[in-house]
């Protein structure tokens, strides 16, 4: 059995001057080609986790913190981790550095000192893969939110990665942009990358292999997606965004008529209602 790509145990982090831990004794393992969703409300430690996994922040303490074979507790380990673990952030505007899309995609490779010819080849590859060819010379401020985020993702993945962490990538997008980015993310699964997808919206965790729920910096649940949905009380406590149909189920449970399964889609709700009657 191969070692997990992301192997975290007993992770602690506290912001300077903060009254409580942002992350407390957290365990997380993610294998190659595994898609793990991490859910939690604001303040649950999600973004801190993203930065730590990407080697962008130093853990306060950990029994073990290894990302793609690099020790996150050491400075060199963190620098090395930045190469293997990509991180995509929430705000599309504040990730695009260059004047044109193609140059922004090249940014990471330029930092790694790749020869120009190789950079050009890889940029062309990324433009094609993320359907950005028509936008290659476009300036960032002329792109829609979804386009910006796709361009940012292309820029992150231009550097060949083994794992990627996405920190609420659709939070600032409109429905069209959201669909855009989610489609691109789904495609990542086929690449064999370890994917950590952080979100507050329940309808985005559906395709995950596993979901981890964070509450106050610690793990409140880790397991199959269905298992989380089955626990209505937990879902409510986590303050996640639920599609309307799930809210209907919650309201029915409140009125003493719980449904056999917790639905996230209309089909699931209808099936539940059918089962009930």
């Amino acid at each position, binding site marked *: 059995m191969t070692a997990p790509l992301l192997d975290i145990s007993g992770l602690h982090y506290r912001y300077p001057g903060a009254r409580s831990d942002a992350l407390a004794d957290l365990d997380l*393992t993610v294998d190659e080609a595994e898609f793990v969703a991490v859910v939690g*409300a604001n303040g649950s430690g999600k973004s801190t986790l993203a930065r730590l996994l990407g080697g962008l922040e130093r853990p306060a303490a950990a029994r073990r913190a290894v990302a793609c074979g690099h020790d996150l507790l050491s400075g060199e380990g963190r620098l090395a981790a930045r190469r293997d673990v990509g991180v995509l952030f929430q705000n599309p505007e504040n990730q695009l550095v260059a004047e044109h899309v193609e140059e922004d995609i090249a940014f990471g490779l330029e930092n790694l000192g790749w020869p120009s010819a190789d950079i050009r080849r890889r940029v062309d590859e990324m433009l094609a893969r993320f359907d950005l060819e028509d936008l290659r010379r476009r300036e960032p401020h002329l792109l829609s939110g979804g386009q910006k985020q796709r361009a940012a993702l292309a820029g992150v993945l231009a550097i060949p990665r083994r794992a990627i962490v996405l920190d609420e990538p659709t*939070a600032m997008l*409109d429905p069209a942009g959201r669909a855009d980015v989610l489609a691109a993310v789904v495609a990542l699964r086929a690449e064999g990358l370890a994917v950590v997808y952080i979100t507050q919206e329940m309808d985005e965790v559906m395709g995950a292999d596993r979901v981890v729920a964070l509450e106050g910096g610690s793990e409140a649940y880790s*397991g199959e997606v269905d*298992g989380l949905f089955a626990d209505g009380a937990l879902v409510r406590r986590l303050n996640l965004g639920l599609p*309307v149909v799930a809210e*209907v189920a919650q309201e029915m449970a409140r009125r003493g008529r719980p449904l056999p399964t917790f639905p996230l889609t209309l089909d699931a709700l209808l099936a539940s209602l059918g089962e009930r009657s």
Partner: protein
Amino acid sequence: MKGAGRKAGRAGAQPVDSADAAAATVTAAAAAAAVGAAAAGPVPAGMSLACHGVTFSYEEGREAVPAVRDVGFELAAGGSLALLGASGAGKSTLLQLVRGLDEPEAGAVDLDGVEPGGEGYPALRREVGLVFQIPELQLFAPSAREDVAFGPRRLRWSEERVAEAVSAALELVGLPEDKFGDRHPYALSGGEQRRLALAGVLAMKPRLLLLDEPFVSLDPVTRRQLAEILGRLKDAGVTIILATHDVDLAWALCDEMLVLCDGVVAASGAWEHGAAATDLLVRNRLREPQLVELWRRLGRDLATAPRTAAEAAEALA
């Protein structure tokens, strides 16, 4: 390696379900507001609105790009209108025209039956509030109280009136003055900042409230809080126009709808539920409200389609 089972959540300083706590605060505040409504009235009764042939274009380089063309619709006092449409359809432009930040090239915006240029029009215009997208961008003062007071002070109200308005507005959005008045806006959480920015507009006692995508970039908890606040305002009789992508929230909060497509009105009036109506929404990168689709697929009478999950649960339980 796929873990089974779940670990118990950590005990310890776990806040009470914050959504419920916030909801309770807002409810209590609104109840107080309703009681005081007759007197000082923290929430004034609504204004009616009528647009006729409103047209406006932007200059881009040498070209004039039409943003809205020949837009006409009416909204009675106390009404609630969902302004729907794809990105770039002209929703923001229309709201800014109604507020009077721009003057239309053609057509007019009548407020409470008064035409532009008519007597009392400028005063009526000052009673129209507009909450921009990502309104946290407008926060600048060193304290929450000062920032909310900005608008009322610009209206040249007496300091007493300003103080009352600030206090009432902060209560309404669930940021009571004694707890939040002195806090620095930038020290607040994202959701609190959003609500603070809303308070800044509500403090001006608008009788027509325009909101440009108020739910975008919001965490789920604040989304629920905001929906409740808007619901209370609507109940208190303020006329509301809500531009949003969120069809489900629009359905929950607004009695009427208007679809803007490339600057032109594609549909307006009461919500319609036929195939044609759904088709129109889909063509504008929207969809039918989930609860309506639910009712349709359950074979129930669409005229009784529930607006909120709670209503749906009532009917189904």
